[in-house]
């Protein structure tokens, strides 16, 4: 208390010397008169009134509506065909498979579904399988994987992460690939036949590679011990997941597409965001510029029904689709743009009215008096 009381005096007592040294020292504590410190930075001060925001609304409207129309048209130009082969309907050829097949079934159940395309598919056609009600985004499901395991780490191969539990070990043998995602891998096989008008069937070649992200295939996923030929040896000491019927090294004959780098597997491992999703299955490449990839006509889809969806009321679909620069067929974005643009335009008109009616009062207050 004493010190504080006298500090003023001491400072003042000290002051004469300071002020004698120079005028600047006398005002030592004076704040700098800078724009920043005095909070006088040059600033743009938008005032939101009907008059000032009007142009923005009209501009948004005028920009968005054409974009929306463009998007809508683009989306409509995409050809898409979808067939549900779940077999819930009794008339469906896959009905019996749907009813009887379970994870424990050892014998594959086959069914074939005829369909016809009204319009030819011109460019590359992407063949998807779609699942509904499959919650690949379930929190525990998403977690149930081991990335270093899938990356070919030898230690992780035999010591799967705890995250994979209870799909990490089967009878105390480490599972490869571990985890619920891998365990529940979609394993239906589909073959597409073009039924010529003369009732003969010709199989349409389906490309198995190139369906996964390049980074996934080449960076994220690796077989243990490098992508060598001897996958069987590499996976020695592991077993396949409980729902699988064959080990991971038998997924494909092609060594470039086998084991962890099997693209079907990689695609499956990229968990879908929403419970109704599609995943790329095969690509039907355009052969020549002259003929459409998939000419209109009758087709048969041969399905080896391995994947039960009965337990979760799921649906299985096969989708054929061409794609544009903006992806698959989805008119929503175009509609959204058109809607937002229209609303903006409408609000712009409303604001125009407001501005016309009340604008004088507020925007030019100097006239008021």
């Amino acid at each position, binding site marked *: *208390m*004493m010190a504080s*009381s006298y500090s003023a*005096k001491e400072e003042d007592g000290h002051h004469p010397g300071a002020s004698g040294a120079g*005028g600047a020292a*006398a005002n030592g*504590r*004076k*704040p700098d008169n800078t724009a920043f*410190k005095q*909070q006088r930075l*040059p*600033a*743009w*001060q938008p*005032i*939101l*009134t*009907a*008059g000032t*925001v009007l142009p923005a609304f009209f501009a948004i409207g005028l920009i*968005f509506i054409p974009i929306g129309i463009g998007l809508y048209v683009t989306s409509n130009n995409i050809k898409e065909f979808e067939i549900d082969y779940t077999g819930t309907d009794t008339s469906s050829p896959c009905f019996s498979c749907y009813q009887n097949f379970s994870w424990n079934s050892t014998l594959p159940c086959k069914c074939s579904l005829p369909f016809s395309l009204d319009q030819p598919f011109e460019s590359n056609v992407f063949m998807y399988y779609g699942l509904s009600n499959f*919650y*690949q*985004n*379930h*929190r525990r*499901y*998403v977690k149930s994987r081991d990335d270093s395991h899938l*990356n070919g*780490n030898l230690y992780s191969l035999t010591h799967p*992460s705890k995250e994979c*539990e*209870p*799909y990490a070990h089967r009878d105390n043998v480490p599972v490869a690939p571990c985890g619920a995602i891998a365990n529940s891998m979609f394993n239906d096989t589909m073959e597409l036949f073009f039924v010529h008008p003369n009732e003969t069937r010709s199989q349409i070649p389906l490309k198995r590679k190139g369906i996964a992200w390049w*980074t996934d295939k080449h*960076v994220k996923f690796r077989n243990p011990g490098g992508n060598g030929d001897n996958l069987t040896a590499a996976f020695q000491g592991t077993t396949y997941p409980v*729902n699988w019927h064959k080990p991971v090294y038998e997924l494909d004959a092609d060594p470039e597409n086998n084991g962890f780098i099997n693209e079907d597997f990689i695609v499956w491992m990229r*968990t879908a*965001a*929403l*419970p*109704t*999703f*599609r995943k790329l299955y095969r690509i039907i490449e355009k052969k020549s510029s002259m003929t459409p990839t998939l000419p209109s006509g009758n087709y048969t889809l041969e399905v080896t029904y391995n994947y039960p969806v009965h*337990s*979760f009321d799921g649906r299985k679909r096969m989708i054929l689709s061409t794609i544009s620069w*903006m992806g698959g067929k*989805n008119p*929503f*974005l175009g509609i*959204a743009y058109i809607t*937002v643009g229209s609303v903006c335009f409408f*609000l712009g008109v409303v*604001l125009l009215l*407001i501005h016309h009616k*009340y604008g004088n009062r*507020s*925007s030019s207050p100097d006239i008021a*008096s």
Partner: protein
Amino acid sequence: MFSFSFFYSPQCYTRNERRYMEKYWKEVRVGDFIRLRCNEILPADVLLLSSSDPDGLCHIETATLDGETNLKQRQVVRSFIDLDCEFDPSKYNSVIECEKPNNDLNRFRGYIIHRSGRRDGLYKVNLLLRGCTIRNTEEAVGIVIYAGHETKAMLNNNGPRYKRSRLERQMNVDVFWCVIILLVMCLFSATGHGLWMFQYGDKRPVFDVLSPEGTGLSPVLSAIYLFLTMIIVFQVLIPISLFVSIEIVKICQVYFIHQDVDLYDEETDSHLQCRALNITEDLGQMQYIFSDKTGTLTDNKMVFRRCTVAGVEYSHDANAKRLAMYQEVDSEEEECTSHGGTLPRRESVGSHQSSKVVLRSHSTKSHRRTGSRAEAKRASILSKHTAFSSPMEKDITPDPQLMDKVNEGATQMEFMRFHSQPLSQLPSDLSDIIDFFIALTICNTVVVSSPNQPRQKVRMRFELKSPVKTIEDFIKRFTPSRLTSGSNSSSLSSLVTNRSSSNRGCSSILSSPSAESTLTKLNEERLQTGRGTSPGLLEHAFSPVPTTTVDGAKPWTLGEGELRYEAESPDEAALVYAARAYKCSLVGRLPDQVTMELPHLGKLSFELLHTIGFDSTRKRMSVVVRHPLTDQITVYTKGADSVVMDLIRPPTDDTKGKRQKKILYKTQHYLNLYAADGLRTLCIAKKVLSKEEYAGWLRRHLEAETAIHSREELLFESALRLETNLHLLGATGIEDRLQDGVPETIASLRKAGLQIWVLTGDKQETAINIAYACRLLEPEEELITLNAESQDACAMLLEESLRYIQAKFLCSSSAEQSATKTFQQQQQHFTPFRIPSPAATTSSSTAPFLVHRLGLVIDGRTLAYALDKSLEDKFLAVARSCRSVLCCRSTPLQKSMVVKLVRNKLKVMTLAIGDGANDVSMIQVADVGVGISGQEGMQAVMASDFALPRFRYLQKLLLVHGHWCYSRLANMILYFFYKNAMFVALIFWYQFYCGFSGSPMIDQWYLIFFNLMFSAFPQLITGTLDKDVSAETLQELPQLYMSGQNSEEYKPYMFWMNMIDAFYQSLICFFIPYFAYADSDVDLFTWGTPITTLALFTILLHLGIETKTWTWMNWASIAFSVILFFAVALGYNASCPTCYSPSNPYWTMQRLLGDPLFYLLCLVTPLAAVLPRYFYRACQGSLFPSPVQVGRQLDKLPPDTRRNLLSLNRMKVGSLSSLFGPRPSLFPFSGSFPRGCGLRSPQTISTSTSSSSSCNKKQERPGGTKNSKGQETRSSCQSSKQAGNHIPASGLRTESEGQPHRQGSPRPLPGLLDPTEESLCRPPYRAGACPEPSALQQSGFCQLGNWTTSTPLLPPSEYLPLTAPPSGDAQNFPPAASPACTLLPFEGGDTCHLSSDCMAEHGHVTTLL
């Protein structure tokens, strides 16, 4: 009572010499002996046992306790005065009994019981309180009575309070709501999850992962688990980061407030200090300001302005001019100072000035040149122990006319003295003048010190004699000539011998104490000074002071150059300095002797027989001296004109009496003028006592002094006996200088809707005076004064006031209200921006209590009753209807109680501002405490949240920084809630699509960084830099402050609106990507990342809409946020292909950037999300702009247009208010109430009759009694008031009349007053209750019944019965006292008390109505 006995203990405080040891304060214990040096601060409450002062006195400065910057005398305990010079603690063996520790600073009672069994009373004068500073006393020794927290100073401090801003409190409520929302969301999710699980029944789907042990969970159990999971997922909703951000923003705000150059005071080189970092935004929400007066509103510097002596006015015009000049010269000089050396510029003012300058340069050693005011100010701080030494007080240019008369008088006296003529032959006006200056010089308690040894009391001791303490002493002193000697003087002489021996080392000059020696010394003195040169003896007498070169030609300059005066109250100092300007300077003061120097006469030593100190009840002080020239025992009295005028001896009928009467009359006239000028008026009077009278009085006085019980009362009565039949010498007008810009600041703050209360320890008159001067009270305002004697009376008073207010203001037909209404309407009509007028907004927000044009004055004692639990509600009801409230004579604790009461009961934001330690508790209690730094110590500053150098800075602090801080923070908080809710809601919507499994689609790191980094900086920048309205506009339109008071930026519904907006925006941000990616092969995090991006863009856009000013920093921060997000995302997504389980977003962002869909989403989604808000803001800006928005629009205008507009606006409002309440000039309250009864001349009444009846014509109230008209039509009479200074309805000086003293101004018209009546109706001074009508008026009752007001239409005789004085006055008033007189007796507020008689009378009156 507790008692303790002491033995010698080595635990002593200072100096390591002998057995005194230095110690920490905390180690001081009760019973320790403490030795204190000059200028040390007392560490505890100490009983003074010894002082180096030979008279056993010790001076302390109590500024830190009560704010009074004066020196107070404390006395050594009586039985210790006789002791040796060196007090030896080891020989101390007495027992002290005293009160329990309490917080009453003005009371101390106890006994000291010596071993001999003798008991001595201990009083307040023996106690040195902790926190005070020892002044003028070389050394003092005392014993600690109360230490630590038991000291009175500490008991007056309510410890610090944890302050939390109102905004934060409001925010916490909403944080609580956030928790509720969070729980609801979690509960919803948990239920959803349970149901989702339940629908699968026993069929276990493949995606339902079993627990690690391989077992499944039941739906219920997993729902419970999920509930907990969701709390973790959604916890972002609880804005933890908000608190961090708020702290950061507040620190930045504090930084900017610190840096504001407008809040920097050049004079003291200090700027605003924010000592509390967490309540800046409260500054924008203040509703009540509680201000200290002294040192806060005023500079506490008194300047002598004018005086009147013997009925002749000396206007001191030069003085006024010079004061005006100070202001102008200052600015120039300050500029010059920066360029280097300046020459004193005031040389041209007068010869006095130039000599002054020379002298100043002489004393540069201690003071430096006090050329500019800035330096003067600094110097005054430097020498703040020498209170009141600013040049303004010292520099008084004498009035030439008066100067001549003083010289003439002095010359004549000198002549007479040499020719041994009786001095009574002196012309009476000259003798009055000389006496007047003698009174100015000696009738005070000013202590003289010399600057070279500032702490040394100047000793000019010619004899050693204590003041008359005993009857024996008196007898002894007067023995040789007139009285028979007492036999028991031996003990006394032995005592004196003792002392002289003991004082050997203490005092340099000692002589044997005998009357003869006095005479010889005096004679010597006379002879030497008579020669007109600086006497050797004088230098000898000044021996402690190093001899300085003295200009022999001007002996008085010695005093001027060397002596400084330390006064108990600043006006005393002002008077002493004023007298010095007339070369009547006070040279030395000792307890028993005052030495002054007169022109031609030289030094005169007055034997000081008694000093009867000032007290608030008597309102005067007196000294009893023996005049060295006439050898008469003379009483000089100085006091408030209201009381002194009543004590003047009634003039006789002879010619001398006629002249006396004329003087009285003129003096009263000038007093009124002074009061009208806002000066503090004092009357100076004298009285000559014959030896017999004196002896008679002294006997009873000594009895009173020695009495142990009711000593104070007896002394009081004794003083009353002395101060009668005075002879009026003159009157003075002193200006109590307000701080710069105080009235403007108050006006501006009031326009901003702030209620300003002044809580002061000062006396009522002074407080009212200042209140008028600083425009706290307007003359057209009515004043309700509450002075009550008892709890019941207080209750009654409050009740009546309340009823009066209701009757007056709530009855719709009252003229006042309709006038107010039209005023408001007009004002609204005129303000081009439709800024709601203060009254309109306040009334709407703080309904049902309207704030009327009323002022409330309450004194400390009444306040104590009013603050009682049973009355506080009523008190508040009265107080809150008043526009301004004045609490006088309030203790520190009362101040804090008032603040606490208002804060708790009215639930308003309170700000307390003060500068002294007496304001500390108030500062701590208030929501925001502001200390004025650099005036009176640091205690207030230490306790405060903000420390300002000057009061006027409060305006910018509140109106600009407060507003900004509040609006910035409020907007930021709302934005934070919105932001978190919006972000969390995204995840919530996703739960519908992931089986309520608690899975987030947003990567966990984005979740963490989103608040921390991506969206943090723009809002911090906006929260720190955003200005809704520019500083200039905020100051020019204080009305904008009300947005903060009404919490318009952050109302509870706004939280919910923001929540709804947040949910809407999150819906948009969720579902546009949802539908855009519906039924596609998108994976979880490739879908979640765009949503994160969209959310970021949306909240930035949202912030953009809410940002009012865009500086480059805003742009930079937003750009930085976006860039940071993408940089982090890209880096993160490229860093590790196998890490970051489970999302493992390797190369996701990179892929998205190559996807046109992503860009399309980024374009449409944020726009769609903020569209409603943007539209709403636009509509709001056009259709119903808030005042703040109008202010912003004003900002946009070109500067000159804006200025024109504002001035136009101001002018119109101003002209309106002048129409409504016209005031030709400021006529502040004079600080006292009707003085004597000269005022009630028939003339006055007739004047008022004419003017108010003319009003009545305008507004005849149906059914109203005639009596009431004067009151009711008051407001409509404003125009007539404006016409002239003659105020209608001034029959009585009721405060209800609003312009109390102005009404008095026309009253004493010379020649119109009937002399007999005047003398007759002067009431005697009465200390007790005075159940007179005047008491009623004073207590505010008069307002109730309009009976007290003018009653203009009735002839005087008709209202006599109403106001007949009670019989108590009968002996002094002949029953024939004229009717006019009975109305007049009126006494100062403190002395008039309401009693049951009043009530009875009042009842009578009301029934008559």
